[in-house]
């Protein structure tokens, strides 16, 4: 199982029946692959759709039914469409139960930076700031480290996405939560020890009495 699959499978376990869920691009998009249809989770695409279904079969794409990247998607029975003011009313108003987003850095207090690398990547924040400010639960799905550097940092040196802490971080090595405002190692990935996680994490991690292995 590759790193991305571990992350996506573990995040999928966080979704509850009937949840309204918004998945960001990248690893978060993969989460949908591991969610049972029986859960009846609603997926929102912030360009104006609830009830996103799988990529349509060839020849069944429609140019006016797309995801936030402009790619063809499908709509499940019971889907609904709406304008962008409504879409972000749903997001900002706390009607989205879970948003899953990628990250560049998460710091020891749970602050996320994921939209800008000054002088380098300045593409704009799109809907990320509203999602982190408004969704009921914010889950960051990302690799634990990039180019050998921990993405779980003491303090973000990249611009923050929100001053609201995220709920959970799921990486290829660990699950990290923020009870009491402090980064806490909740689970380790299969075959990864607590020590290995600590060794590659810049932020100080609080440890529970036991740190179980992820069930995926």
């Amino acid at each position, binding site marked *: 199982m590759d790193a991305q699959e571990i992350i996506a499978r573990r995040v999928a376990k966080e979704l509850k029946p009937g949840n309204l869920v918004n998945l960001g691009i990248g690893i978060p998009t993969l989460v949908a692959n591991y969610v049972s249809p029986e859960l009846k989770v609603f997926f929102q*695409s*912030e*360009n*104006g*759709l609830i009830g996103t279904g799988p990529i349509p079969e060839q020849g069944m794409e*429609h*140019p*006016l*039914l*797309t*995801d*936030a*990247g*402009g790619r063809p998607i499908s*709509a499940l029975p019971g889907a609904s*469409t*709406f*304008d*962008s*003011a409504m*879409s*972000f*009313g749903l*997001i*900002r108003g706390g009607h989205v139960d879970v948003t899953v987003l990628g990250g560049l850095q998460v710091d020891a207090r749970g602050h996320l930076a994921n939209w*800008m690398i000054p002088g380098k990547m*300045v*593409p*704009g*924040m*799109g*809907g*990320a*700031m*509203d999602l982190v*400010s*408004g969704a009921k639960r914010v889950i960051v799905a990302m690799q634990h480290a990039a180019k050998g550097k921990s993405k779980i940092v003491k303090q973000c040196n990249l*611009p*923050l*996405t*929100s*001053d*609201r802490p995220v709920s959970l971080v799921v990486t290829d090595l660990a699950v990290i939560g923020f009870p009491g405002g402090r980064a806490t190692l909740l689970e380790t990935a299969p075959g990864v020890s607590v020590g290995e996680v600590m060794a590659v994490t810049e932020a100080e991690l609080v440890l529970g009495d036991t740190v179980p292995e992820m069930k995926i």
Partner: protein
Amino acid sequence: MRAVSVEEAVAMIPAGASIMVGGFMGVGTPERLLDELVRQRKSNLTVVSNDAATPGKGVGKLFDATLVSRLTATHIGLNPKAQQQMLAEQVAVDLIPQGTFAERIRAGGCGLGGVLTPTGVGTLVAEGKRQIEVDGKAYLLETALRAQFALVHAFLADYLGNLAYALTSRNFNPVMAMAADTVIVTAEHIVPVGVIAPDHVMTPAPLVDYLITNPNG
């Protein structure tokens, strides 16, 4: 409302005008109006649009033709030309959160001076903005946004100007159709009055100033 050709409509837009353009990554964008803006070389435009789409598509065409001098958008990550023009300081770009973008335009169309949003508090987005507390929670005051022209794309239009949008092409079109002095619309289908049921009209007729006649009559 008046039905006009795409040439007539774009001739009314002066160089240097501010225009809101509907669409999300080019989906729901009035392509024929953008093509004509390029053909008539309306330069120095102030553009308000969710994104810069991609080269050759939607608002991207205006960057291809270097007609944009200011852009207010939520992201331009998928248009390298727009990014180059921003980095070369040929285009002044104001990047704002997408929910804030929607609400500022809605406020502009609904006669509100602005809204209080939690989005952006404690981030770079808060710089230079008033922060206001309500019941102990901090919000940014985000002010109304309007333009001289709104370029809107509908799925159905009738000859009174009633509009309905399809699926994800609705996006910012309805709020923009309220937030500009002059509203110009293209539609995939123009239908007789009464064909769009009252409950299915998404932009009421009085909001529309000009409807572009369809090429096939």
